[in-house]
């Protein structure tokens, strides 16, 4: 029994190693969702997506306000930036009747796919007429958006007064 536990533990460590080696940094997870305008699905809304280090790509909502953006990974390139500390700017601008809306301004801080939604598929519902952006911190990332999605925000870490009150090196 004990042997079995040890073997499965070793296998677990080993498989984690393989997993860690195979993670491709994800710059922006695949996103699907619905764009609303005054509470109703908005068709023909142009969505421009700008990911740091990448060209702009775009999509358009269908008659149900539905859209899809595919996942974007970091490509290997000689002069590409090396994410030694991963932090990627993500911006999606929605354009409806020539008016621009800042639908998504984010900084992704973990390289895993779907880090924006803690591993679940990123499915959003957005309201262009929202007066103030929703602010979320997820997996150390920051997201100012006109959207909501099924995710819990990071817990706050209490740093007290911020000073080292233990008295050492005062």
């Amino acid at each position, binding site marked *: 029994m004990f042997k079995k536990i040890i073997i499965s533990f070793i296998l677990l460590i080993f498989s984690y190693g393989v997993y860690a080696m195979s993670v491709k940094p994800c710059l922006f997870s695949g996103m699907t969702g619905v764009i609303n305008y005054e509470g109703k699905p908005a068709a023909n809304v142009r969505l421009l997506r700008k990911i740091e280090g990448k060209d702009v790509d775009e999509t358009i909502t269908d008659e149900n306000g539905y859209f899809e953006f595919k996942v974007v990974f970091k490509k290997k390139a000689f002069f590409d930036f090396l994410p030694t500390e991963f932090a990627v700017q993500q911006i999606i601008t929605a354009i409806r009747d020539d008016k621009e809306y800042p639908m998504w301004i984010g900084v992704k801080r973990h390289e895993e796919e779907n880090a924006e939604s803690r591993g679940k598929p990123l499915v959003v519902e957005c309201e262009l007429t929202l007066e103030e952006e929703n602010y979320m911190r997820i997996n150390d990332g920051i997201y*100012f958006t006109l959207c909501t999605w099924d995710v819990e925000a990071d817990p706050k870490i209490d740093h007290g007064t911020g000073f080292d009150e233990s008295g050492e090196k005062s």
Partner: protein
Amino acid sequence: MSLNPTLSSKLARDVYALSKLPSLRLAMADLKDRYGNQFSFAESNMLTAKTGPIGIKISTAFGFVLEMQSGPKGKEKPNGHAVIVFRGTESAADWLTNANVMTSSTASGLSVHDGFHQAFKSMQEKTSTLLGSLKNIHTIHCIGHSLGGALATLCADWLKEQNKTAYLYTFGSPRTGLHPFAKNLTTKMNGNIHRVYHRTDPVSVIPIWPYTHVPESGADYLLYSSGDFFNAKYHSMAKAYCPKVAGHSWSSLPTLREAPKSDFTIMRWLKSKVKMVFSYNSIMNLNDALMFVLKQSGYVIPKTITSSLSLLDSMAYALKKGLTLAATAAKWIVLLVKKLLEILGVVKDVKADLLSKDFLRELLSRLHQKVATEADKALRIGLA
């Protein structure tokens, strides 16, 4: 009074995301949510710097200056503390800068890594204006991770040269300056340096000797990491440093300083036939052997380095002199050269009288390059 590990590590982590937000309004909204009313932005508080080799200078936001709005328990407000937070390495351009081993002199007249120094100098004027605009500030806390740690170190040195009260907090920092700089800053800071690192963080071993970490003596904070091989995950501010120090006070973090190796241990390593691999122990052995052999050759690290005699020139010159003048030193120089050739993957017979100054210089240059590229490679594994 110093900042606690939780706050200093959070700031070092948060600067990455903050500096990526496209507007000050959003950055302020984020800061307010994170830190309540503990900080206020100084006006136009973004620091920018140019990094990269000649011809490919890339301008990026590198940090923030924040004024603290509240103090330690029982202290009146406003408390006169400000923090300056530097962002770390992120682009390939930064890494090319890091691989450059040219030195230049700081305000204290001592030699530091030229790449770090140029990056700091490009934001020095702005920093000066920002700090000058803060009223009644008596203490400045300099914080940074990775290259940001090197920038924070240079900032602390610059502030001390102006007789300001400064504290320094670095996480996974490279070695910023040569030994005389490290020793001088350690003395000037009088214990107000908090260096946090992992053995297996590849950035913490570059550049090699005579580059030296601060503090040069006394306590530093070595966090646990498994094994001897470098791993990118131990360099991560968000995933490795931040979670490990959260909730600690400086006195509850381990303060293990590795004891310096005896000459006997170094000599035994130089004579050994152990295969060189790019691991913490190998690099530290190499680092110590370099220090030992150069000292045997009568080498004294120059306090200032002129353009006509670079750091590598001065080292190569000392080794050459050691080969011709001191028989005891020559033996160790030959053994060191053999080790260096092995690391560089060159199979070559080594004869003392055939080692020219130019050859030794080239060897040292390639060694620095090799350590930098291996560290870079270690950072890419698992990420690319």
